[in-house]
């Protein structure tokens, strides 16, 4: 017998190559549930991804059209896809290093442009695939393969940044919050315009072991214990929020979607050159 959501996967690629207990699998699992519950035909989905463990969630596992691009460029490629296929769900899933590190510029500009992509950024606080180098989201003071004496940089607050850049929908959840996250994924996919979820996820191999959480479950329990809903944090000091995962919906608003904007222009010429 098989889990009924496995039908959404490319069966020949299973079991996944993710490490034991990796959160990427949970994101994949939830994504299947969401597609199922929303009754979306995978033929109407185009997934776009970059390079990194998290990028493997859609590529190769999820069975839909899949564009596995270069490191950091998923959103740029997805922009071309969405413009030519505005009727499809164009869904980008990739890592923090990929989308917010090297790819940060495409992220903020796509949010600003409000192009109708759905982006799930899997933030595992590290460069997983390359073996555990510091990422833009690695908390300060953590030792990684390239911060052997502790990280002196501040971690990026990606969801807040994307909200400031102009996205139509922004939320943050962790892989522990499977019910909330599932709901948020549905909202994000339904939302017209640029929608974005930062998913805090465990990486036992490359991150967890560096913070004394060697098993996937250890980080999950950390998510469980240290999450706070965004509605409850206003007024709290930066130091009070350290080590906390601020979850919840940050933004939901309506603005002109980019491809609609282009289509409006083209419509002006529908009857002749103006």
């Amino acid at each position, binding site marked *: *017998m*098989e*889990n*009924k*959501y*496995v039908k959404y*996967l490319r069966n020949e690629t*299973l*079991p*996944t190559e*993710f490490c*034991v*207990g*990796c*959160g*990427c*699998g*949970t994101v*994949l*699992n*939830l994504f*299947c*549930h969401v597609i199922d519950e929303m009754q979306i035909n995978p033929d109407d989905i185009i997934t776009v991804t970059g390079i990194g463990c998290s990028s493997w969630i859609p590529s190769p596992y999820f069975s839909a059209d899949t564009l596995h691009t270069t490191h950091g460029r998923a959103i740029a490629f997805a922009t071309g896809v969405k413009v030519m296929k505005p009727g499809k769900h164009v869904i980008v899933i990739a890592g923090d290093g990929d989308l917010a590190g090297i790819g940060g510029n495409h992220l903020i500009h796509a949010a600003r442009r409000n192009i109708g992509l759905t982006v799930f950024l899997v933030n595992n606080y590290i460069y997983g695939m390359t073996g555990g180098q510091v990422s833009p989201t690695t908390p300060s003071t953590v030792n990684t393969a390239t911060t052997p004496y502790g990280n002196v940089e501040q971690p990026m607050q990606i969801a807040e940044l994307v909200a400031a850049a102009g996205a139509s929908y922004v939320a943050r959840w962790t*892989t*522990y919050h*499977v*019910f909330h996250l*599932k709901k948020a994924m549905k909202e994000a996919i339904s939302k017209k315009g640029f929608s974005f979820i930062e998913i805090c996820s465990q990486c036992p191999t490359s991150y967890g072991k560096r913070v004394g959480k060697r*098993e*996937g*479950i250890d980080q*999950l*329990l950390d998510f469980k214990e240290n999450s706070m809903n965004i509605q409850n944090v206003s007024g709290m000091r930066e130091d009070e929020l350290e080590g906390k995962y601020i979850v919840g919906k940050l933004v939901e608003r309506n603005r002109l979607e980019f491809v609609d904007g282009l289509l409006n222009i083209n419509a002006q010429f529908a009857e002749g050159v103006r």
Partner: protein
Amino acid sequence: MGIKRKKIEIEIDERLCKGCDICVILCSEKVFTISKKINSNGYYVPIPSNIENCNGCLICELICPELAVILEKTELDELVAL
């Protein structure tokens, strides 16, 4: 509208499970136990040994990183079932 009774079946897909034990630990009803049996990929697949305790919260099925938890929830209409 009658009272519903749920029938739940849980299985773990041996082919897919990697023995991370997340289901074991996060299940509030302790439905799963860690096994000693290795599958062909070298992982210890948990056993859903206390299915009767399951409250149908679905967290195991949703959170399993390998889509290995097979959970079938059949809702039986109490009136009919009686």
